[in-house]
């Protein structure tokens, strides 16, 4: 079955990022397809490559990147939410005259239309958030 996932909460906040990741991993292990994981509101903070959590803690961002690489997942940050929170890829950084970009591997920045499309194309949309 084709599943869409929406994450509305940042990492290390409550538990939504963790639950969404464990759910995605279990779904893939059972042979389901993840059509897209869309990160909205504070959820876009899941996509910064500059996080440095303690070594004995889970690395939420890296975990998403690795899952994306392994399963060719489409991880999308909402552009308006990302701009407000300082998440940018190379193009956005250049466009806004910033000295660096911070998008983690496996993520891309796009518009809210990608969430609508996820809802249309997926058999189920599962929402995780605060």
């Amino acid at each position, binding site marked *: *079955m084709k*599943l869409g996932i929406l994450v*509305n909460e940042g990492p290390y906040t*409550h*538990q*939504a990022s963790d*639950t969404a990741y*464990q*759910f995605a*991993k*279990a*779904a893939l*292990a*059972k042979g*389901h397809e993840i059509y897209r994981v869309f990160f909205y509101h504070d959820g876009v903070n899941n996509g910064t490559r500059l996080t440095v959590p303690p070594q004995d803690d889970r690395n939420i961002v890296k975990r998403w990147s690795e899952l994306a690489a392994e399963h060719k997942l489409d991880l999308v940050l909402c552009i308006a939410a990302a701009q407000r929170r300082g998440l940018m890829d190379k193009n956005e950084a250049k466009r806004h005259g910033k000295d660096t970009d911070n998008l983690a591997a496996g993520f891309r920045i796009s518009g809210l239309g990608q969430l609508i499309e996820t809802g249309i194309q997926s058999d*189920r*949309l*599962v*929402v*995780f*958030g*605060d």
Partner: protein
Amino acid sequence: MLHTVNKSPFEHSALETCLRYARQGAAVLLIEDGVYAAARDTAVSKQVEEALKKVSIYALEADLAARGMRNRVIDGVRLVDYEGFVDLVVEHNAVQSWL
């Protein structure tokens, strides 16, 4: 329909609202702090026991265990792992997350 509740019933009305809207035969999955609703002998356990007559109630075992609640679960509340969570999503035509 599958409903998911991730808030403690002792600090949020998500579960109460969910149970009010859930139809006969629906499934409710308690996750994250929502699993506190699965505990016996609390201020909301009567409400949950009453709801079991109308809907199926599940709780995510890992979240119960993380909170030391695995041995306090109300009879009739079924425990699932993440794979069970996926199965519930697949078995129901839609998922409503009460955030």
